[in-house]
């Protein structure tokens, strides 16, 4: 008989090892899945994890993509992780990402065709502010009326998508675009563009912002009273109130920070890799970041690694679809397995497994 036995203290070794174990298990189960689809499992796994980085044929294209895709995931996930640690569940980062992009792009386009150094910094501010304000809607409703922030923030994603469509077709539509939906391309507007800063790496301003966010979150959580209060609120809300934490302040702060970072991610995307506001500008970064946050155990360094890993499975997954004809649904299932196994093996850090013979009743 197998029994689970609660550890007196969580095992630090297993806390570090479970993500690695989860990746290994995902490779095995994913390999079986691909084999069942009639593909060579080893080749599929290699295509997903190895080729995007080291295959001479693809790496020159896909290696920069790694940072381009990982940066918004990390930026958003860092913000979400603060709230998740405090038990404040912002599920609407996708919406805040969209609104941030719209606000930032709108500021840039308002100056067109003026060229000035202050335009891009203003856009960054507008992007962060837009995301923050969008996230303050669930925050204020929760503080004033006790609404559930999960539902409100999630529903606001769909509102944001409608706003996005309206902007792409209306206010922000390119006047010289021959009536096609979508804004001017910001990449062709130097003062508003977010270009690749180091050639061949994919590193744009958003990548730097993501790294800064990782460091700032690390310092906040480990060295600052506010980070301590965030952790305390998540672990023992009553003790937090006893310690003097004001729950409403924390709700506003956590939702505000995560909204702001999501808005920043949107701005960097619209001014950089995407280039313009289009109807289908958003690409699920806001939802995927939730997975990244948990994959990284809500720890800043973990999120950095998880964001890179997630980006890799995206790029590798596309490559596998393209090269091996693996259906996109199978790739999505593969990505889902990663979260599944991570949560599954998580039990090992708090419990130990005991095997024992079933006792004969005396």
């Amino acid at each position, binding site marked *: 008989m197998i029994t689970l*036995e609660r550890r*007196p*203290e*969580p095992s630090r070794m297993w806390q570090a090892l479970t993500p690695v174990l989860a990746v290994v298990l995902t490779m095995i189960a994913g390999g079986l899945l691909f084999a069942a689809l009639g593909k060579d499992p080893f080749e599929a796994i290699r295509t997903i994890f190895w080729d995007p980085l080291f295959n001479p044929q693809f790496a020159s294209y896909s290696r920069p993509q790694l940072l381009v895709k990982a940066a918004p995931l990390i930026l958003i996930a860092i913000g979400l992780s603060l709230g998740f640690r405090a038990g404040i569940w912002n599920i609407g980062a996708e919406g805040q990402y969209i609104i941030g992009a719209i606000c930032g792009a709108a500021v840039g386009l308002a100056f067109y065709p003026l060229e000035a150094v202050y335009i891009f910094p203003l856009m960054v501010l507008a992007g962060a502010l837009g995301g923050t304000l969008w996230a303050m809607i669930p925050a204020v409703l929760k503080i004033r009326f006790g609404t559930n922030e999960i539902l409100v923030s999630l529903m606001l994603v769909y509102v944001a998508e409608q706003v996005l469509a309206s902007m792409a077709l209306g206010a922000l539509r390119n006047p010289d675009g021959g009536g096609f939906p979508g804004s001017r391309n910001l990449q062709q507007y130097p003062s508003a563009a977010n270009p690749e800063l180091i050639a061949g790496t994919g590193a744009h301003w958003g990548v730097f912002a993501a790294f800064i966010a990782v460091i700032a979150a690390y310092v906040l959580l480990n*060295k*600052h*009273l*506010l980070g*301590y209060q965030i*952790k*305390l609120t998540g*672990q*023992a809300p*009553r*003790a*937090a*109130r*006893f*310690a*003097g934490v*004001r729950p409403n302040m924390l709700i506003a702060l956590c939702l505000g920070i995560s909204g702001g970072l999501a808005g920043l991610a949107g701005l960097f995307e619209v001014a950089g890799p995407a280039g313009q506001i289009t109807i289908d500008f958003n690409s699920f970064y806001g939802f995927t970041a939730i997975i990244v946050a948990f994959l990284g155990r809500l720890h800043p360094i973990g999120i950095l690694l998880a964001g890179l890993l997630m980006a890799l499975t995206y790029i590798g997954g596309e490559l596998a679809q393209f090269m091996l004809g693996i259906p996109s649904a199978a790739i999505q299932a593969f990505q889902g397995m990663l979260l599944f196994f991570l949560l599954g093996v998580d039990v090992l850090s708090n419990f130990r497994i005991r095997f024992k013979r079933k006792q004969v009743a*005396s």
Partner: protein
Amino acid sequence: MNVLLTVDGLSKAYPGVIANDDVSFSIARGEVHALLGENGAGKSTLVKMIYGLVQPDSGSMTLAGAPFAPPEPRAARASGVAMVFQHFSLFEALNVAENIALGMENPPHLRDLARKITEVSEAYGLPLDPARLVGHLSAGERQRVEIIRCLLQGPKLLIMDEPTSVLTPQEVEILFATLRKLKDEGTAILYISHKLEEIRALCDSATILRRGKVVATCDPREKSARELAEMMVGKVLQQTKAAGADLGDVALEVKDLSLPPATQFGTPLRDVNFAVQRGEILGIGGVAGNGQDELLAALSGERGTREGVFLNGQPISKLGPTARRRIGILSGPEERLGHAAAPDMSLTENALLTGHVREELARNGFLNWTKTRVFAERVVNEFDVRTPGVSSVARSLSGGNLQKFVIGREVLQRPEVLIVNQPTWGVDAAAAAAIRQALLDLAGQGSAVVVISQDLDELMEISDRFAALNGGRLSDAVPAAGLTLDQIGLMLGGAHDLEPA
């Protein structure tokens, strides 16, 4: 002797601890048998095995001459074993009869059940109205619901786990009268408690457990409470002594403090008035659920009020917990895990929880972990907290050790005023004595101390003045010296609803 239950060599081990090691004893029909021991001595595990909640690793039991090995509580109940738990399992939104019906295998019609409840409650002198909502009952009345639920089964053996911890002295008398009546009818009673005077008043024999083993079997009426305590703890107990400080100015004053309840079945505070002087311990007694949590929250600042709380004459009602700590009002809530301390955080992190203001553990919000660790180590050393180190998480400590840490954390911050709720609840005798001594020493150094407790012996031991909390109202404080149990009982509101409802 007409033996009902024999327990022979029961052992039960949990990972890392042997809860019961070769425990043997027997109970006769009509005997009240005490099971005595500190927290963690194995009393709960033993009765859980008798009640079928836990299966023993080895050993055997016989009930009324037949082998007895209940695989689940239902089997134990069918054999005539009933148990009243320390923590009630009642639904507040249902009435008494509905609650009792929920616990029955084949409940009769509610109207018949209500009649039976009234019959039993009158026969045993336990007044209870079957139609009342449990949420509106006092703790003592809730216990009656649990007892009547057991009596309806007509048990041969009744197990009672710490039954008097929630009762006023008068209610204890009513309970004892009921238990004596049951005893005269031939029911055996297994009575678990650590209140020695009660055991001496009620029980015919006692089995004393220490670290899972039977260390003595005796007639408690022939031993003094002190002898029993020393058998339980296994060493000579230190007696607390007051420092006898001179009383100073009034530090904390509460005037006409009212506070609505936090939850539907909570207790509002109604026009509470008291004042505590420096160097004084004010004991606030009362049965659980009469406003203790609310009073602590209003004083610690967790729940601000518009007016009514003063420190050195200055109004402080609107200040939050952090601001109150800055001016010297510290507190220790009743619930150790989850309120006074975060269960999954280390002792160092828990030292920060209340200590960062007065111990200056943070500058501009940036934490000084070295200083915090030193503070946590100081608490651990000075209050003899048994733990592998300050990086251990709070929930890995025993109740007594964690409580010493929680109290020590506040005491070492040199409070002007310290308010504690149930400072020794569920704490072993040695740790409880250490905590009481620390509170006395603190008052001796000139702090004003408010001790809210349900343990009247404790309050009589350490308080200078005593006040009783009943239904959210606080009685006038009177000098504790010379108070009799009867007077205290009347202050606590006597027995709730003694006259049949």
